[in-house]
């Protein structure tokens, strides 16, 4: 009876209860984290109840299909998960500092930590961040009112959130797998790890993978089909270009991961032999499939960051982007070549040197378009009137550190060298070196740029700059020493080491991890300070940075329908053009009714049913698995019989809002860039831009 109801779930799987049996540091950390997660969840519920925010939460956010809100929800999800990921990083570094012949954590716990940390940081921090940015920006930049498939967009968010939810559940109930974010079988196969860890991994990855694939599809179709009239491909903003390439990668790179995950599940649940040791199974197939996804994935993550840095340089150097076309070509070639290099993640698997050479060369080739980009940014900054705002601080950190990371990548592309440093801390240094200064700095710079667009007030500059510096210093301390210990031979993912020479380095990296933790707190502090001072930071008129692209041609925050009238585009950098011709804020001759999709429960239904599905499959609770699948299916089947009329926003409403905004603009004084950081900046810019073509 109990088994039928709860599958293989037992009381012992509740992690916080472990504290009753043992009070070692190890259980304190593990069970403590579980307890903290539970308390945080309860606190959120209590807070929402006390402030009577439940209806607001559902009506304004969880059922909304507005791409701007979905984008913000993605980013919030990313931050929540990042908090956990960083705490795990700090715990791991603390362990490593003491890991000379031991360490504070058990080997098992350590392995679980790097596995959850890697999985979370890639799939539930980095992915939601970039998806959030693309969501928020694509329609605004191409002059559209929403995505091509608004409901699918919400469903994608729900699927991503399901994956994150499964990871959070694994913190409290049962345990996660211990095979790293790559989860290679047969170590994660049923023979060596009957579960539930690898099952959590499989379902979190497969379910959220569908979400990512649908996001990519949605963005690609939106960019193909929904551009405002006149916006030819070569007039699109650079961020949109990178988003397009990322979307295409998402559509084509997710299938191998889904297949690898599902085959892994077939092996585990139905005793198939794809990756097992016996009866013809072949784990090398797994490595191959995984990295056929894994490599494009890193470009999925970095391309939008490149896009952000491109927008950043032109905006804060007040110059048109130098070499727009070469940047576009570089982006596209990176996207294609990124499908030709996956083998560099397993040079040591045993294939012939000629195969290794082929993939090594292909890998090195990617350095060319990447180099083009770096030069494009430099040339854009050159001779510009640079303002040293917070995003520029991140940019400087990115410029120097990312180049180092890129160089270490080129070193790794050489199979002969790769054999030496494979699986050492050198790799850990390399990928953090491109992920943190590349992707994460890009995201934070982007948040400083577009936060005022989304919420109507700027982030506090001084706080932002201090935080940015903390990130840079913290990064250098935490990860640069790893290049050295890697070369000295410290293997990655090892719970302990025997060479005392590593100790001083590992102490520095531990201190660095705490600096990074404080940098994260710095972000929260920046947000807090900015909210307190939001009146003097307010930029309701919408253009605080003398922006170039269409999203700045709307008030901040933009109305639900984005544009009162769909703009006609006649050149690149559309908004600059308007400003230079002195007619950025004009009233249209007439307003028309706007048709927008209405709210839907689809997201909630998907979130609840797929979380239940993933959880049930993990714990072998078959009735729940079937039930949730059937509910999911029936809901959508029934939904397809309903007519979705959407809602009409009457022209008069649009007119009132639009006219109020234009009037506010006309009543205020445009400010020059010298006053950008003063309360005088209400978002009406006196343009300082050298005009493009």
């Amino acid at each position: 009876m109990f088994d039928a109801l709860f599958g293989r779930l037992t009381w012992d799987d509740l992690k916080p209860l472990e504290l009753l049996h043992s009070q070692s540091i190890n259980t304190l950390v593990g069970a403590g984290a579980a307890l903290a997660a539970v308390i945080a969840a309860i606190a959120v519920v209590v807070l929402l109840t006390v402030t009577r925010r439940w209806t607001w939460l559902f009506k304004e956010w969880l059922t909304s299909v507005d791409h701007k809100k979905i984008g913000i929800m993605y980013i919030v999800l990313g931050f929540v998960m990042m908090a956990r990921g960083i705490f795990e990083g700090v715990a791991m570094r603390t362990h490593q500092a003491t890991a000379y012949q031991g360490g504070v954590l058990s080997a098992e716990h350590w392995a679980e930590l790097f596995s959850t940390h890697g999985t979370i940081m890639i799939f539930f921090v980095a992915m939601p961040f970039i998806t959030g940015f693309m969501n928020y920006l694509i329609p605004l930049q191409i002059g559209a009112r929403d995505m091509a498939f608004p409901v699918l967009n919400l469903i994608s968010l729900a699927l991503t959130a399901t994956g994150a939810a499964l990871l959070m559940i694994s913190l409290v109930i049962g345990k996660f797998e211990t095979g790293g974010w790559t989860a290679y079988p047969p170590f994660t196969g049923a023979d060596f790890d009957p579960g539930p860890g690898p099952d959590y991994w499989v379902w979190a990855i497969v379910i959220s993978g569908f979400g990512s694939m649908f996001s990519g599809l949605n963005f690609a179709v939106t960019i193909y089909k929904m551009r405002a009239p006149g916006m030819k491909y070569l007039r699109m903003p650079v961020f949109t270009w990178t988003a397009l390439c990322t979307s295409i990668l998402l559509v084509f790179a997710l299938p191998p991961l889904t297949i690898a995950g599902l085959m892994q599940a077939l092996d585990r649940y139905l005793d198939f032999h794809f990756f097992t040791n016996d009866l013809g199974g072949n784990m090398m197939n797994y490595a191959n499939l995984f990295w056929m996804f894994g490599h494009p994935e890193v470009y999925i993550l970095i391309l939008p960051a490149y896009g952000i840095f491109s927008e950043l340089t032109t905006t804060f150097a007040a110059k048109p982007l130098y070499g727009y076309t070469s940047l576009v070509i570089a982006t596209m070639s990176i996207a294609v070549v990124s499908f030709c290099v996956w083998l560099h993640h397993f040079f040591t698997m045993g294939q012939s040197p000629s195969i290794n050479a082929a993939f090594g060369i292909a890998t090195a080739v990617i350095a060319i378009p990447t180099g083009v980009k770096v030069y494009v940014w430099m040339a854009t900054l050159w001779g510009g009137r640079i303002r040293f705002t917070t995003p520029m601080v991140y940019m400087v950190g990115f410029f120097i550190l990312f180049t180092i990371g890129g160089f270490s990548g080129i070193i790794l592309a050489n199979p002969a060298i790769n054999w030496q440093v494979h699986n050492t801390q050198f790799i850990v240094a390399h990928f953090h070196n491109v992920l943190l200064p590349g992707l994460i700095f890009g995201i934070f710079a982007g948040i400083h740029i577009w936060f005022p667009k989304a919420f109507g007030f700027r982030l506090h500059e001084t706080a932002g700059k201090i935080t940015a510096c903390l990130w840079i210093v913290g990064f250098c301390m935490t990860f640069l020493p790893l290049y050295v210990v890697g070369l000295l031979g410290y293997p990655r993912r090892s719970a302990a080491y025997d060479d005392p020479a590593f100790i001083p380095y590992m102490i520095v990296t531990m201190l660095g991890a705490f600096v990074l933790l404080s940098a994260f707190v710095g972000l929260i502090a920046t947000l807090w300070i900015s909210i307190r001072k939001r009146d003097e930071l307010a930029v309701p008129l919408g253009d605080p940075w003398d922006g170039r692209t269409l999203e700045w041609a709307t008030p901040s925050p933009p109305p639900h329908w984005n544009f009162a009238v769909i703009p006609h585009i006649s050149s690149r950098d559309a908004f600059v053009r308007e400003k230079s011709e002195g007619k950025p804020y004009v009233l249209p001759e007439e307003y028309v009714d706007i048709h927008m999709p209405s709210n839907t429960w689809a997201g909630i239904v998907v979130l609840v049913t797929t979380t239940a599905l993933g959880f049930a499959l993990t714990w072998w609770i078959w009735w729940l698995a079937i039930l949730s699948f059937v509910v999911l299916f029936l809901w959508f089947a029934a939904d397809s019989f309903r007519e979705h009329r959407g809602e009409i926003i009457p022209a008069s409403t649009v007119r009132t809002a639009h006219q109020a905004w234009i009037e506010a603009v006309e009543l205020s004084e445009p400010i020059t860039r010298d006053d950008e950081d003063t309360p005088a900046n209400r978002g009406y810019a006196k343009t300082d831009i050298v005009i493009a073509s």
Partner: protein
Amino acid sequence: MSEQGTNPHPGMNLGYDGGEKAAEVTIFGFWTFLMSDLVTFGLVFAVFGTMTGATAGGPGPEEVTDLRSIAIQTALLLGSSFAFSWASLSMKYHGGRLHMLGFLALAATSALGFLIFELIDLLHLVEIGAVPQRSGYLSALWALVCLHGLHVAGGLLWMGGMTLQILLFGLTDQIKSRVTRMGLYWHFLDIVWVGIFSMVYLAGVA
């Protein structure tokens, strides 16, 4: 031949104007989805290709292939595809829904026949011990064939739902757009089957 100057999307030329832009976007989106699905199938094919030798002493291609049954399945699926295109012609040129539903029913029956023959084949495999648990080769074979079979079964459910909707709402623009997407899906599955009977069965016994 057929000059479809006004057809902005792939798949059957439905020749309706209403909601053309919206239909164009959804159909292009669906086409993109199919491309992603194509990669999925292609990679399962590739995995199958790497596992053709991994029979681990168990049944091999000779034992699992019944060419007669495969030929029948091929004919049934092709027939279904053909019947579907007839249904879409009917939808395009004549308003009558029963006429169209007749062809749709034909397509569905034919596909059901395909599934039944496939199921019989699979049951036979179980009988001779060629279960996926036996070897890597069989795992890959079952995964590939069942992936396709499940797609077909899903398509049948979809057809059932569409039939209901056509009876309830008539051939509205919304429905026409859905039928167009279903057609893409249906023909796409037939293409995948061409790959399966050629590469899995024929090449297996050759």
